[in-house]
């Protein structure tokens, strides 16, 4: 058994691509092993900014000899077919063997593949891996690029180390020959570093100031940042994305703490953190009370002769960035949000949907309607209107221009600074929420109204111009907007009828838009509830209300949940079985009449019992549904279970007497209709 090392040396690989590249290298290497039928015990992949490395342990030195047979045409087939078969398998006609296949003499070619040295196999595999490697963006370079067919790589590829059990696997491609020499750290090491074998690789590089294991570098950055902060009496604000990014930017990471001018702390902490992180890849720290401190941690790629020089350089750059941020912060405040909002007329929201100012008008109108007319949520009309009118104003501020991810947040800060009511500032800040799965859902009425109006306007605006997500394409994030609507409705117990919402939004009844919106939201609801075990068909069974499609999503959800809980009980499962039996009989007989007529015969006991149980349960269930007490409605249905079971056990529905048959079918029809009033059981699958 042998260990194999492959290292591909190149110019600096973007940090964000390294994880994918490790996966790609392993995938392609496994592809080559599988194709050759070679197994390995373990495969490890590492990356630094300047290299990708793979170590495969437990490879055989030779592949096994194999003998394969290929079945050919029957004896006596036309020469053309037989010759073709020979050509395909690389044998001569004389080498063919004849075997009996189901009584028919048939040609067989026996192909003996001798065992192959794994070194040869790898020598052929490495160029294939390099050529087939897929990068998010790749380039050509150097003299070879005079030809359009020259190798493409993420940045120029400069060297290949390939060692099987310490022996060079010879590869020549693109003017490079594989060997055992690589490069150490760009500045701490000079001249080539010689690698003995796979075991020696990481140590030899570590001696040349390269930590090839990315996890190890991440660990040093994580711990080093923590310790540097502690030494300064602070806590580092943890940021795993930043740890990984810095590990992808360094071969010899050295976290260093620096301080910036305290005066910059007047700028909102989110701005400082974002500037430090996005532009400079620095960590920031907080003090014991959780307040942002005037400290940053940069990760150098050298053990600097004088770390203070590096820290000071970084401090200056950060200071310049923070000075810009403070300039924006102060400049933006010279204009009120209302004045900023006027500039929204210049920003196109969508070519067919007017400007952002137009959108803000619609949102303000709808948010007002929600709190004033629908009273869902029940909030202050004036505050809501003001918040909605200002909610997008920060989009034209310098700060949000620089850091789009601060939208909302900056508006909130500026509103506060302007002295606007806190409800208004909060609503401006939080009206994009909830954004992701775990995001906090607003509950303050003003915020809820603006947030919901904003998202409903997105959905309705795009639906109106027939833009709906298709497959994986959802460029306007409408699915996310719908999910956010649901979560707002759920967290705040809103009872909104979508037809009235759409009427208010469009100024006229728009049943077409309302049903598009309802269908879209119900689809999202189904996805959301599926994770909680509420089946899609239970939702379908809950979509009718009073003879039409239910336009209240909260009610559909409540009913589906009650139905799901009910059908999990024995009573529920049995009742469903009884319902199905009844429905099948009625369907087979094409029967719909459910009118109760005086009986012309003496009913059987079970028949009487069902009629009486139904007379009790039906009005009760109907009443409960009317007041949206779905669990109680289901409980009322549950009382029918034993009567239904006994009816089917003891009563013959298809009695020879026509009057008996008619009366019994009508009884079943009444039972079915009673069930349907609670939920449409016919939509339940299985």
């Amino acid at each position, binding site marked *: 058994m042998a260990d194999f090392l492959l290292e591909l040396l190149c110019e600096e690989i973007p940090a964000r691509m390294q994880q994918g590249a490790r996966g790609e290298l392993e995938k392609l290497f496994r592809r080559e092993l599988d194709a050759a039928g070679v197994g390995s015990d373990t495969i490890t992949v590492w990356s630094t900014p300047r290299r990708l490395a793979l170590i495969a342990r437990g490879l055989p030195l030779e592949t096994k000899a194999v003998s394969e047979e290929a079945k050919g045409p029957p004896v006596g087939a036309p020469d053309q077919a037989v010759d073709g078969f020979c050509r395909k398998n690389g044998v001569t006609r004389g080498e063919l063997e004849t075997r009996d296949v189901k009584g028919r003499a048939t040609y067989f070619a026996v192909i003996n593949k001798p065992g192959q040295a794994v070194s040869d196999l790898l020598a052929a595999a490495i160029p294939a891996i390099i050529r087939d490697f897929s990068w998010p963006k790749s380039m050509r370079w150097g*003299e070879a*690029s005079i030809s359009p067919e020259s190798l493409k790589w993420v*940045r120029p590829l400069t060297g290949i180390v390939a060692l099987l059990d310490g022996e060079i696997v010879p590869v020549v491609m693109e003017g490079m020959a594989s060997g055992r020499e690589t490069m150490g750290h760009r500045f701490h090491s000079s001249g080539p570093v010689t690698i003995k074998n796979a075991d020696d690789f990481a140590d030899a590089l570590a001696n040349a100031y390269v930590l090839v294991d990315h996890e190890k570098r991440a660990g040093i950055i994580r711990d080093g940042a923590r310790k540097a902060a502690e030494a300064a009496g602070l806590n580092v604000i943890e940021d795993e994305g930043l740890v990984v990014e810095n590990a992808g930017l360094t071969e010899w990471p050295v976290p260093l703490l620096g301080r910036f001018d305290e005066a910059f702390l007047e700028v909102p902490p989110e701005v400082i953190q974002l500037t430090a992180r996005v532009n400079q890849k*620095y960590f920031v720290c907080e003090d014991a009370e959780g307040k942002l401190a005037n400290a940053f941690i940069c990760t150098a*790629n050298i053990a600097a002769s004088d770390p203070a020089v590096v820290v000071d350089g970084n401090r*200056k750059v950060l200071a310049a960035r923070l000075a810009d941020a403070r300039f924006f912060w102060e400049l933006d405040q010279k204009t009120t949000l209302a004045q900023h909002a006027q500039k929204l007329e210049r920003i196109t929201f969508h070519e067919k949907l007017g400007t952002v100012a137009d959108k803000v008008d619609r949102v303000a109108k709808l948010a007002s309607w929600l709190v004033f007319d629908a009273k869902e949520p029940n909030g202050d009309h004036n505050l809501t209107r003001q918040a909605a009118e200002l909610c997008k104003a920060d989009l034209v501020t310098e700060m949000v221009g620089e850091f789009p991810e601060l939208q909302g947040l900056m508006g909130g800060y500026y509103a506060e600074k302007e002295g606007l009511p806190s409800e208004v500032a909060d609503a401006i800040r939080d009206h994009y929420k909830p954004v992701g799965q775990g995001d906090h859902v607003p509950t303050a009425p003003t915020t809820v109204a603006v947030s919901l109006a904003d998202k409903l306007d997105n959905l309705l605006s795009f639906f109106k111009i027939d833009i709906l997500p298709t497959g994986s394409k959802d460029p306007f994030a409408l699915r996310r907007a719908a999910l956010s609507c649901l979560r707002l409705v759920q967290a705040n117990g809103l009872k909104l009828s979508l037809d009235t919402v759409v009427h208010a939004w469009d100024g006229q009844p728009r049943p077409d838009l309302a049903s598009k919106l309802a269908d879209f939201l119900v689809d999202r609801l189904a996805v959301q509830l599926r994770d909680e075990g509420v089946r899609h068909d239970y939702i379908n069974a809950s979509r009718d209300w009073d003879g039409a499609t239910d336009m209240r999503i909260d009610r559909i959800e409540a009913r589906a949940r009650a139905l799901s809980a009910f059908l999990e009980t024995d009573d529920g499962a049995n009742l469903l079985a009884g319902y199905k039996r009844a429905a099948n009989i009625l369907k087979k007989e094409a029967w719909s009449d459910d009118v109760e007529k005086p009986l012309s015969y003496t009913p059987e006991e079970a028949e009487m019992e069902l009629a009486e149980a139904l007379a009790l349960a039906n009005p009760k269930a109907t009443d409960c549904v009317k007041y949206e007490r779905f669990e109680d409605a289901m409980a009322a249905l549950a009382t029918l279970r034993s009567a239904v079971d006994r009816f089917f056990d003891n009563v013959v529905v298809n009695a020879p007497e026509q009057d008996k048959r008619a009366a019994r079918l009508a009884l079943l029809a009444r039972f079915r209709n009673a069930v349907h009033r609670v939920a449409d059981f016919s939509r339940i699958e299985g």
Partner: protein
Amino acid sequence: MGRLAMTADATAATQPLGAGPRDPSRSFQDMILTLHDFWSQAGCVILQPYDMRMGAGTFHPATTLRALGPEPWNAAFVQPCRRPTDGRYGENPNRLQHYYQYQVILKPSPADIQDLYLGSLRAIGIDPLRHDIRFVEDDWESPTLGAWGLGWEVWCDGMEVTQFTYFQQMGGFDCKPVAGELTYGLERLAMYIQGVDKVYDLDFNGRGTSYGEVFLENERQMSKWNFEVAETGALFDLFNKAEAECRNALESGVPIAAYEQAIEASHIFNLLQARGVISVQERASYMGRVRDLARGSCERYAEQMAPRWAEAYPGWSLV
């Protein structure tokens, strides 16, 4: 009396003429001269600045037009850059409407281009064991020139000091071979090396003449002209004339002359932007017009040169 005293002070700060050692760490111009020496010794043609106003060294024909075609081309030059909207009347410590870029173009990109570049940093006094030098992903794209490339911004202790790009396409054509382009931000680099926080405090000549003495009044007046004074009617007129002349030159088969008019139109457009007379809607249309001129000139140049290139490099073709 006061004026006399000031004059006396100024002369005191400026050392007398006479031979002295070159010191790139204390003199802006010595830094430039050191880069010239370095790249000259590396084999580059050292050009003088192009005599037209442009927004970036990449616009220089020695970069754009020479990036096309198979012939080797190694050149280095300083190019003054004009960015009217970046003017701050001399009041911002590092924003200028006129500044210098040092531009190196190496075609084909040599195998040791990174080492060469690092050597140039050492030459101007940046020791990479004292300063943290990093190559951080930064791709480049110029729709105006129909060009894109991959590369990095080079960081020195967290500060971007150079843009490093492998040109992949220019004028819509694949670069065959690929050229490496290095663009040093000279003022930034000098501020770093000299340890000053304001660009105007840079020592220009190593003898006490400051960058401010050379350029501050220029920044004040040019900012005022760019933002407030320039007669917009004349600018619109100039734009249209440059556009018409570009087309005239293209039709007459002199694409280098056409390209100059594209550079001119691009700068006039930037001036109009600074004057704030181009609306958001118009902006896209003007940018499209500039793009048509610049890209059209590059394309025509490449097409016109292609037969000669193909003759000198059998097997080579433009597309």
